């Protein structure tokens, strides 16, 4: 019933639009809801896009609209083509003049990462903004589709979103019956920080059969003491590093020879950038984490 009504309304709207604008195809509005629940409608596909987070840059490329991105913020290092793009400051401090001078028709912002005052200023200046911050696997594919809709690159974007969805589904299926292994994911060394199960990293760990010993904590990124880690005595300790190369971040734990993770040589490193960004590269991150945990299980 509802869908009939929607169809009817759509048909009526289309009819009106066709009557009003004989060349309607290119003038139809492209609308999408951002991650704060605000709807953005563009009258034409976005051609001049500026991304205010490294993740947003990556997602624009994933949506098949990489060639529309005119400028990015610091640390936009993936895909390699993003490194060639001009910078307009950092995500916490945007050079508003440089941004306005580029005359963007879409600025992709970061819900919790950009200063609210600067985003409000963009709104006041009439620059279309679209705030994103996927917190789930489904959120990643959906945001790719929404960005593709705004950029008019639906074909590439929806295909990529589908590839991600299928990838997640097949990885989930593959690792659904592995033996659970208690783990601790170290986000930062000093102060000691981890993630809970709501965090996207936490979801990656769960998919691979990792049981996050701090998964039930209230905060998304809790600060904890070394004592509770010793008490929980996880079978493996993971952290992110540049390209997943071992460095000194986990050396502190080696002092505690009684820790299972130390004893069994299960201090593990995974590439930091794919696991920390809500982008299709999460598939690679999941693959790596799952393999590392497989090996860790064998060493127990």
């Amino acid at each position: 019933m509802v869908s009939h009504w929607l169809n009817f309304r759509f048909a009526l709207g289309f009819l009106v639009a066709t009557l009003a604008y004989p060349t309607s195809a290119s003038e139809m509005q492209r609308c999408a809801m951002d991650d704060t629940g605000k709807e953005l409608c563009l009258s034409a596909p976005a051609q001049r896009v500026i991304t205010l987070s490294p993740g947003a840059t990556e997602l624009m490329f994933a949506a098949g609209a990489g060639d529309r991105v005119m400028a990015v913020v610091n640390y936009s290092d993936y895909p390699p083509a993003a490194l060639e793009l001009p910078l307009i400051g950092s995500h916490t401090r945007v050079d508003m003049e440089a941004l306005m001078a580029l005359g963007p028709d879409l600025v992709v912002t970061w819900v919790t990462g950009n200063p609210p005052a600067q985003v409000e200023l963009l709104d006041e200046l009439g620059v279309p903004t679209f705030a994103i911050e996927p917190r789930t696997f489904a959120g990643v594919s959906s945001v790719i589709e929404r960005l593709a809709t705004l950029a008019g690159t639906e074909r590439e974007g929806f295909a990529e979103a589908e590839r991600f969805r299928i990838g997640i589904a097949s990885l989930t299926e593959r690792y659904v019956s592995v033996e659970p292994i208690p783990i601790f994911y170290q986000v930062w060394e000093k102060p000691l920080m981890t993630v809970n199960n709501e965090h996207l990293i936490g979801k990656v760990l769960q998919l691979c059969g990792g049981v996050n010993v701090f998964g039930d904590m209230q905060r998304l990124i809790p600060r904890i003491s070394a004592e509770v880690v010793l008490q929980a005595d996880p079978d493996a300790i993971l952290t992110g590093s540049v390209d997943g190369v071992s460095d000194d971040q986990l050396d502190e734990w080696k002092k505690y020879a009684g820790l299972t993770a130390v004893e069994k040589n299960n201090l593990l490193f995974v590439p930091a950038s794919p696991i920390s960004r809500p982008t299709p590269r999460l598939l690679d991150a999941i693959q790596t984490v799952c393999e590392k945990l497989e090996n860790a299980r064998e060493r127990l």
Partner: protein
Amino acid sequence: MTRALLSLGLLALASVALALALGSVTVSPADLWQVIQGEGSTLHRTLLLDLRLPRTLAAFGTGGLLAVAGALMQVLLRNPLADPYVLGLSGGAAVGALLAMLMGMGTLIISGSAFAGAMLATVLVFGLAHGTGSWTPSRLLLTGVVVAAGWGAVITLMLAITPSYKLPGMLYWLMGDVSYARSPWPAVVVLAVAVVLIMPLARNLNVLARGPMQAAALGVSVRPLEWTIYVLASLLTATAVTTAGSIGFVGLIVPHMLRLILGNDQRIILPASALAGGTLLVLADTLARTMIAPEQLPVGVITALLGVPTFLYLLHRSR
């Protein structure tokens, strides 16, 4: 002496002109002139009228407010180390602002909360210093410094329990940053009104600076005057902090610099502080947003980098 004020005024105008002319995007003088005449391209109008002008005015207002508040505090406490924040006002404002940020409030509520925090700090120090009846500037100073330490502890606590993604915004607020200023008008209007209101009091302030006994002997009602200064300085500082966070240094150094050049006559020092403080912050902010553009520096860094050598030079020369 009016010549000194006139040249400071010209300097202020020059700094504002410079701030409008410079930015990470180059706008030629010809384009600048077109915009001033109400023409020019949309982009140039946006850059100058929507971005540079409000920011420059906010910087000028904030700098002027802090310098005047600093000059007042130094007279009130008869202590050369006094600055607008010495009595814990910025601490109260910071706690207010950070609390609002922690709760995820919008920019307007953050400003309001900062102002409320500043006022709370003022009333708290007033009440505590006033408590038992006997009242001296040193008692006010001690109370203020201790309360400021208390605010500092609360700020540290809040930073420690804040989710990490909110930390950059909070740290930038604590460092002071004109780029987050929304509207320049409160700062500019309060500064103008304050300077007009304060001029009739300047003569009495000169007497007070020599000590309360002498002031009383010369017929100045010391206590009401002191409280007026305290309330006024607090209002000025609260407005400044609400506009651009707690920018340090300007309130301490600018009045001293001016005393080294112009002598200690409050009738000159107060309006001169308004002009020189504004000029310093406008210049510092212009550098902050252009020096390593597109990266943007916090303005407090530049104020100190500009101010420290200038002050040391003046101090050296005055011996």
